[in-house]
């Protein structure tokens, strides 16, 4: 049976009082324009918040808040709900006081103000950002209930800024010697990450814009690096400096964290690419189907190697699969929204999605990942996610074999 009584079932008598009796807002004058010069969501949307996972980290300045994927539509993440990950807290820099430096293997080390950067040729591109530790809790057993906590270190925005290659060329990068760049943040942590030169000269952006406005302070205002397809830690926030060099730096967050422990005891270092992955966001863990019958299964797919080519969905735990509709635009290193029709017969079901990217790579099952990498990698878990639906319509996080 279905657990919840719902509005909108066939009314008794003449009809639904909400239709028969006009509601107040149809019979009065509403609110003026610019009551909010910068608008806010409806008060009825307050449940959709980014949230910390209790017990996951020990201090809230070196922590993460998860985006509520269970309530998202399309591919754009509302900037106010972009996930957060800070290592030494977030700051709100006065952009007039911000400086950006390039040094190292260049003809001339240079300093740029925000004025300078915003005069240069700009590009605008939609890209996903995923923390390398997204879905970390699932390497072992199921540990968290909802998609906000299993996959919520994921967001997708339109970023605007200067191609890093334009800036490196402006400084006269030594194209022969340059092999890597270091990106460095201006906050307390002065976060550093190495990026190989092939990427740096390809699609990396020194970005100031996000979803049409400036970056939010939590996301690096006024300047962050956008490293398409690569884990979020490399998208250095509050960016103050790029150094061009010939060796990787083995900085703290590439030599102590964001390394993948293999069964041999060796750690893989410098893992960057976020491999092809997908997840069903509705219905998903912690949700409850209201009724048997038609449902639209929807979710997100992405690949750090390029475009999503196809997404398949299973309702029987992976026995059989059907191909979902991809909403356009389907862009490289960007979230892709998928939808597929489904008639829930009221019986138990296990929902899964499986993405395939343009390289032909197929999103793996958790056991296939474990066979190669064991269960202690922490990072870079791109396994197929399973949601169990019971006869009451309740959806829970499970793993299957």
């Amino acid at each position: 049976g279905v657990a919840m009584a719902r509005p909108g079932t066939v009314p008794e008598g003449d009809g639904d009082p909400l239709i028969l009796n006009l509601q107040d807002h149809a019979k009065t004058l509403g609110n003026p324009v610019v009551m909010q010069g910068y608008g806010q969501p409806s008060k009825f949307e307050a449940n959709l918040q980014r949230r910390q996972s209790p017990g996951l980290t020990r201090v809230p300045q070196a922590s993460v808040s998860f985006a509520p994927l269970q309530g998202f539509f399309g591919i754009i993440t509302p900037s106010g709900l972009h996930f957060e990950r800070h290592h030494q807290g977030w700051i709100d820099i006065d952009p007039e006081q911000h400086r950006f430096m390039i040094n190292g293997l260049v003809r001339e080390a240079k300093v740029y103000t925000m004025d300078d950067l915003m005069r240069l040729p700009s590009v605008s591109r939609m890209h996903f950002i995923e923390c390398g530790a997204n879905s970390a809790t699932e390497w072992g057993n199921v540990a968290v209930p909802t998609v906000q906590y299993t996959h919520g270190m994921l967001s997708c925005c339109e970023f605007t800024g200067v191609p890093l290659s334009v800036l490196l060329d402006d400084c006269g990068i030594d194209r022969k010697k340059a092999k890597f760049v270091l990106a460095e943040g201006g906050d307390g942590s002065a976060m550093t990450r190495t990026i190989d030169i092939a990427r740096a000269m390809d699609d990396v952006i020194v970005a100031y814009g996000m979803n049409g406005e400036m970056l939010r302070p939590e996301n690096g205002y006024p300047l962050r690096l956008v490293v398409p397809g690569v884990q979020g830690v490399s998208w250095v926030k509050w960016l103050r400096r790029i150094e061009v060099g010939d060796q990787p730096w083995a900085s703290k967050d590439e030599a102590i964290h964001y390394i993948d422990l293999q069964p041999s005891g060796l750690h893989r270092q410098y893992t960057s690419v976020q491999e092809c992955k997908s997840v069903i966001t509705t219905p998903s863990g912690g949700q409850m189907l209201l009724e048997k019958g038609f449902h639209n299964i929807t979710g997100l797919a992405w690949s750090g190697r390029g475009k999503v080519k196809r997404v398949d969905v299973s309702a029987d735990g992976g026995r059989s699969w059907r191909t979902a509709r991809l909403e356009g635009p389907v862009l490289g290193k960007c979230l892709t929204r998928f939808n597929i029709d489904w008639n829930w017969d009221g019986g138990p079901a296990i929902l899964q999605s499986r993405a395939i990217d343009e390289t032909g790579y197929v999103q793996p099952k958790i056991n296939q990942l474990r066979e190669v990498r064991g269960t202690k990698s922490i990072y870079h878990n791109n396994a197929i996610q399973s949601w169990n639906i019971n006869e009451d319509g309740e959806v829970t996080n499970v793993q299957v074999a």
Partner: protein
Amino acid sequence: DNYSGVGRAATPKEVAAWDIDVRPDFRGLPKGRGSVEQGQQIWDGKCASCHGTFGESNQVFTPIVGGTTKDDIKNGRVAALTGNSQPQRTTLMKVATISTLWDYVNRAMPWNAPKTLTTDEVYAVTAYMLNMGGIVADDFVMSDENIAEVQKRMPNRLGMTEKHGLWQTNGRPDVKNTACMKDCVKEVKITSELPSFARNANGNPVEQNRSIGAVRGVDLNKAA
């Protein structure tokens, strides 16, 4: 140049002020020195409150010290990284490069007052952390001149690999699935479910979902 009027040359002092990174080959490491003894004083005064007197604390972050052995120092591989003997993977178990520690303490520690240590203090407190891990002796004085020798004693110095397909843009994936569409598995078994003690740990889903839509958040206060 192409972008006339945009940007300007950095002065040498400006580059010096910001170019603080230290690489594994010690490029960028400033001259200086600091003893284990001095390090202990700094540690007790500025670090122990968060990381514990012996670097063992789990209070604000995972432990820095612990889990490494004399054998590890000899082998350059931390044995406890295989198996489940250690409850936590400490910093010293993982870090392969001493430059990483030096660079990070220099740029980011103490956490609430980063970039306030002098160069010599960074040498000292780094030496003290290694001393707590049994890597350098109590009377050791670390400096730019002998740091390369210390590197040779790092317990996990051979514990990193770059040989995998997930770094370079042309890297090959290590895991392979196929796009089977029908009769892909014979029997589906649920191998793991949310333990019941964890059901409440992340709040009540009904408060984390809309009150409209195809679904509602489960109400843990009502659900059986």
